[in-house]
């Protein structure tokens, strides 16, 4: 289509064609775009608000078509996430809708899988060539029903922890010897799942009780993340079976040690490790990794912790085990807990990694950053010991490379890096980090949607603080709402940026976005800030006009809405600001309609507001209104009543009844003094 129109552009036949007009509009916007590769520079504005004048003849650049096609390759900032349908009714507008819609789609998928697995006979006909195993129904019910090793094997495969344990016990009671392999598999299963049946994929808020037995889950909150970590119980099935075993191989020890470390019984793990050494068994790499991770928990002082880690590494060397990436990452992770000395060790570990020839993964860099910037985020945040070069050096190492996921901790790198950039207020680094995200497959390392939201929230916060309002708006249009839904804090940053650069005339558009994001009903202070910014300064008449329209919309969010709608309570400043905005725009009737609302909602108007009203009433030569104003202020028993009354008497032409009224009110207010 683009090629077609590019070819016939000059001809008069196409000039009047409706489709040509549409494409022409988009071409103008696309040709204005920066080069695609320089993604860290902000994208330029599409000509959506410009006047389109179609020339008689246009000379196209030779690469115009290519440029237009190239601009479609990148992310479309107007589209929502790919998992949603491309329809206005079905696109999520707030972050809660995002979560709701994706979860309901998941729930539908789970319902279908339930149906398929409950009635598998309807889904067994195989059309696919070659065979697609993931689209066949799962057999989740065990087939073998008698008590035998085959049944045990099946239960282990189906991940049924409790049933497997009871089957094992039955086998032992019946006297059949269970092979070492099978017992090791069973131990692996129990230790991996911590002696509980694996629960379904659940959100962190849900909690399920398995088979009626209530498990006591002490919520251990680990750094920033609260995960209900199950504790290694004393009367564990794993330990019991382990003790019952006649001969134990390295695999059994290994399974038990790793299970203990995973579920918090580190001391026992070290005891078992000592057992292994006494029995002169060879320990494998994964067990060593688990022990290194557990090391900081079993010693108190920093140097003792590090010594323990070094000892484990020495023993590893004695046994002839080659350290893997996970070993080094475990050392780095543990050295974070080893105090200030741990930092130097961390750097040395990194150089050793390179010497051995293992490419550091994002997790390694994450641990190093954490070791160095730990003091920046603690309760006593100090920049004294921090050499901020580390992040620069890390970025130098990492720029331009595409990573693969090799360690579960890789996903924390980007988030942590952006957190550091934010606290260091370094915008250049932030842009470099963001550019790294665009390389190859690195987008996968953003993690879960909540982690993504944190990342983009911090990035946007940094941009709002440091950049001019034009750049802020460009990034705003690029990121919102396709990549992240800003909360009220982020919108306040935008308003602040507008205020700093004197672009307050854009507030009505920002207000529309605020309403669409659903923040207008929840964040009362954000709405008040919008109003106060509009009411503050003097602007040109068109701007005041747009402000007045906006103020009327804001008025609708306050007060009594339709049934079921959450609305905000009126505050004095909100009422006052709306009234002054309406007055400034010259909409006197609507402004005067605001005054009864003060009384209705029990809010006291400010003195300055009353002065403004008085000035406008006198401009229009309306003494009746002026007198009602003084009456209003008297009803609130404001100290300014006397002054207002005097002003009215001096500046207005009053008839007799007005004068008597005023004299009464003045007397009243004087009495009160």
């Amino acid at each position: 289509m683009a090629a077609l129109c590019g070819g016939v552009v000059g001809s008069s036949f196409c000039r009047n064609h409706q489709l040509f007009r549409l494409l022409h509009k988009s071409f103008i916007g696309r040709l204005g775009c920066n080069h695609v590769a320089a993604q860290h520079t902000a994208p330029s504005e599409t000509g959506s608000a410009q006047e389109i004048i179609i020339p008689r003849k246009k000379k196209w650049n030779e690469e115009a078509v290519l440029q237009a096609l190239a601009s479609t390759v990148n992310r479309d900032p107007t589209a929502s996430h790919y998992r949603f349908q491309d329809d206005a009714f079905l696109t999520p507008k707030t972050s809660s809708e995002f979560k709701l819609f994706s979860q309901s789609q998941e729930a539908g998928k789970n319902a279908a899988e339930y149906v398929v697995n409950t009635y598998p006979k309807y889904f067994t006909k195989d059309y696919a060539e070659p065979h697609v195993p993931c689209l066949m129904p799962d057999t989740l019910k065990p087939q073998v029903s008698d008590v035998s090793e085959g049944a045990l094997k099946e239960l282990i495969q189906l991940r049924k922890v409790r049933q497997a344990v009871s089957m094992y016990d039955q086998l032992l009671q019946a006297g059949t010897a269970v092979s070492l392999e099978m017992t090791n598999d069973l131990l692996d299963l129990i230790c991996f799942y911590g002696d509980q049946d694996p629960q379904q994929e659940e959100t962190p808020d849900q909690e399920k009780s398995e088979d009626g037995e209530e498990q006591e889950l002490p919520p251990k909150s680990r750094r920033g993340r609260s995960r209900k970590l199950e504790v290694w119980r004393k009367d564990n099935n794993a330990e019991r079976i382990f003790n019952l075993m006649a001969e134990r191989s390295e695999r059994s020890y290994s399974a038990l040690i790793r299970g203990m470390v995973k579920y918090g019984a580190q001391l026992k793990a070290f005891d078992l490790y000592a057992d292994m050494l006494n029995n002169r068994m060879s320990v494998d790499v994964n067990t060593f990794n688990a022990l290194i991770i557990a090391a900081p928990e079993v010693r108190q002082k920093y140097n003792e912790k590090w010594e323990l880690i070094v000892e484990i590494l020495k023993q590893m060397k004695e046994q002839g085990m080659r350290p893997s990436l996970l070993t080094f990452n475990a050392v780095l992770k543990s050295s974070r807990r080893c105090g200030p000395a741990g930092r130097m060790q961390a750097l040395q570990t990194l150089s050793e990694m390179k010497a051995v020839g293992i490419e550091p993964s994002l997790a390694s860099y994450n641990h190093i950053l954490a070791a160095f910037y730990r003091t920046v985020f603690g309760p006593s945040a100090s920049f004294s010991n921090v050499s901020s070069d580390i992040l620069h050096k890390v970025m130098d190492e990492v720029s331009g490379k595409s990573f693969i996921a090799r360690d579960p901790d890789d996903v924390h790198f980007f988030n942590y890096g952006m957190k550091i950039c934010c606290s260091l207020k370094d915008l250049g680094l932030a842009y470099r980090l963001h550019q790294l995200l665009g390389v190859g497959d690195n987008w996968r390392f953003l993690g879960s949607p909540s982690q993504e939201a944190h990342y983009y929230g911090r990035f946007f916060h940094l941009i709002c603080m440091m950049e001019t309002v034009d750049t802020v708006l460009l990034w705003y249009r690029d990121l919102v709402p396709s990549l992240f839904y800003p909360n009220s804090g982020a919108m306040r940053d935008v308003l602040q940026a507008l205020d700093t650069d004197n672009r307050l005339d854009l507030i009505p558009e920002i207000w529309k976005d605020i309403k669409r994001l659903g923040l207008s009903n929840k964040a009362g202070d954000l709405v008040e800030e919008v109003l106060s910014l509009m009411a503050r300064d003097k602007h040109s008449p068109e701007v005041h006009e747009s402000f007045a329209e906006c103020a009327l919309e804001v008025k609708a969010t306050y007060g009594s809405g339709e049934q079921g709608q959450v609305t905000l309570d009126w505050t004095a400043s909100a009422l006052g600001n709306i009234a002054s905005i309406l007055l400034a725009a010259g909409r006197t009737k609507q402004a005067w309609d605001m005054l009864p609302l003060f009384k209705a909602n029990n809010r006291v108007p400010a003195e300055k507001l009353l002065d403004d009203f008085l000035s406008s009433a006198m401009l229009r030569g309306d003494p009746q209104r002026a007198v009602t104003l003084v009456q209003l202020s008297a009803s609130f028993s404001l100290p300014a009543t006397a002054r207002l009354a005097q002003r009215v008497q001096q500046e207005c032409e009053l008839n007799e009844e007005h004068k008597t009224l005023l004299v009464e009110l003045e007397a009243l207010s004087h009495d009160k003094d």
Partner: protein
Amino acid sequence: TVVAERNNSLSRISSAICVTHGLRAIHATATCYKHHAARIRVGKRDKPVTYEQALHPHHIAHRKGWLSQHTSNLEGEAGAAERTVEDVFIRRFIFGTFHGLLADELVIKRRGNVLVVCALLVQKVGPQKIYFLIGYTEALLSYFYKCPVKMEVQMVKDRVVYKYL
């Protein structure tokens, strides 16, 4: 065939020149029924009807498109009957799953291995219910036909009326 008797001398003479004036013959041929396929006949002008329903099948490829797009009707391609049966099942399945929500007939497209079901739905229920049903149909039909099934949904305020017949 039965031929009526010619009593007229005039007709006897004119029969030589084969004029069948006054000749009455009964023709009997096979019955030619009226076409009824996919047609809604004009009535009291109170029945709202969509564009798809209003145009008769002989307008396909002239004013209408196809509701089911696949390549098995091309020369040398196999599987047309299987595709048709699949289509019928899919239409009934989705009619039942999205009960009361379909605004018009489904359009089913096959691109390579993927089955794309394009539906036009009415905005009767909230978006989270629609997403639940979409996730459910996509998964179930994928398991059933062993190929990826995608839905492309467009929401419409009301059934779009083209004419009243």
